[in-house]
């Protein structure tokens, strides 16, 4: 008797594990396939589910169980299978939404913000372009601490993939600069033409003052070269 009970328990546990795995796999597949439109897809599926659920519960099932002989139960079996699949899909959609929410919460961003606040004597690089890229290389080679502040989510993602420490946000916003640990920063470098005045204003307010105009420097370098070449 006890062995029978254990066997039943094992079968149930295995069934539950398989069901859970099917659900998780379905959820991941749905999340990947319908990432941007899963809300619409979910409501369409739900409407379909409601319709066939009503049919199953109130008419076909009743008819099948009370009137039909066993060989006529095949249509019912088909309905039950569709019903089960629909339920699996519904739950999968809900799980997919949970995965989406977790992605939206973006724990990496939150962790990066905490890390940035803890930095001391670092440099804040506002914007990402060739100049900041060159500076990051130098900073990495000398183990200088840095954080890139950038307003573009796609750029942030690409920086994350390149293992470049960054936080997402508009660097003309004082709060974002504070998140980057500006109070304890050694320098702030803004590398974009956009919002330059705002950034300057913010930087001056906090008391750090350092700005370089790449074109100006290049012009001076070229001028100096020409003077030397002329004298040679």
């Amino acid at each position, binding site marked *: 008797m006890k062995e029978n009970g254990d066997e039943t328990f094992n079968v149930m546990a295995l069934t539950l594990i398989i069901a859970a795995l099917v659900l998780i796999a379905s959820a991941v597949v749905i999340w990947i396939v319908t990432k941007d439109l899963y809300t619409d897809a979910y409501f369409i599926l739900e409407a379909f589910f409601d319709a066939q659920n009503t049919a199953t519960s109130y008419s076909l099932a009743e008819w099948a169980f009370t009137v039909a002989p066993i060989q006529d139960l095949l249509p019912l079996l088909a309905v039950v299978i569709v019903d089960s699949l629909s339920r699996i899909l519904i739950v999968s959609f809900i799980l997919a939404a949970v995965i989406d929410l977790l992605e939206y919460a973006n724990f990496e961003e939150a962790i990066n913000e905490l890390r940035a606040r803890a930095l001391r004597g670092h440099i804040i690089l506002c914007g990402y372009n060739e100049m900041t890229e*060159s500076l990051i290389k130098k900073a990495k080679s000398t183990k200088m601490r840095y954080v890139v502040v950038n307003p573009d989510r796609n750029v942030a993602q690409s920086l994350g993939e390149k293992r470049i420490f960054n936080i997402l946000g508009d660097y003309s916003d004082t709060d974002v600069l504070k998140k980057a640990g500006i109070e304890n920063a050694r320098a702030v470098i803004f590398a974009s033409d956009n919002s330059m005045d705002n950034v300057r204003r913010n930087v001056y307010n906090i008391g750090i003052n350092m700005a370089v105009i790449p074109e100006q420097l290049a012009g001076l370098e070229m001028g100096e070269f020409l003077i030397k070449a002329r004298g040679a």
Partner: protein
Amino acid sequence: MAEELKDHVIVCGYGLVGENIVDTLLQHRVKVVVIEMDGKKVELLKERGINVIQGDATFTKVLKSAGIERARAIAIAMDDDAKNLFAVITARSINSKIVIATRANDEMLKDKLKEAGAGFVATPNKSASNELFKELTKGI
């Protein structure tokens, strides 16, 4: 005016880079001819008493009217890397001895510009990054 000049420096493009080149050269009393396409900038330069030719520096005719055959050097400082490359090739083809300085926004083009005949290639972002890093590492 440009026809009379000799051993002068031609500056192509009067943006921020060009402006700084012109200022540096004038401080050292170097004779300068600027080639610029923008009419407003041309007027401004005239008001400042600087020799200026309105036109596209990638054109042989324009470079010749700036006296490239007699010039000591040319600074090609336009915004467009492709135009700069084209201007370098054109300048070198007209005057094989002229000293050429140019700018490249894309660092990858630096070698190409040197191959085309530029003696010096400034990359604004690299210049800025070097300057900033020098400043940042002061006292470390």
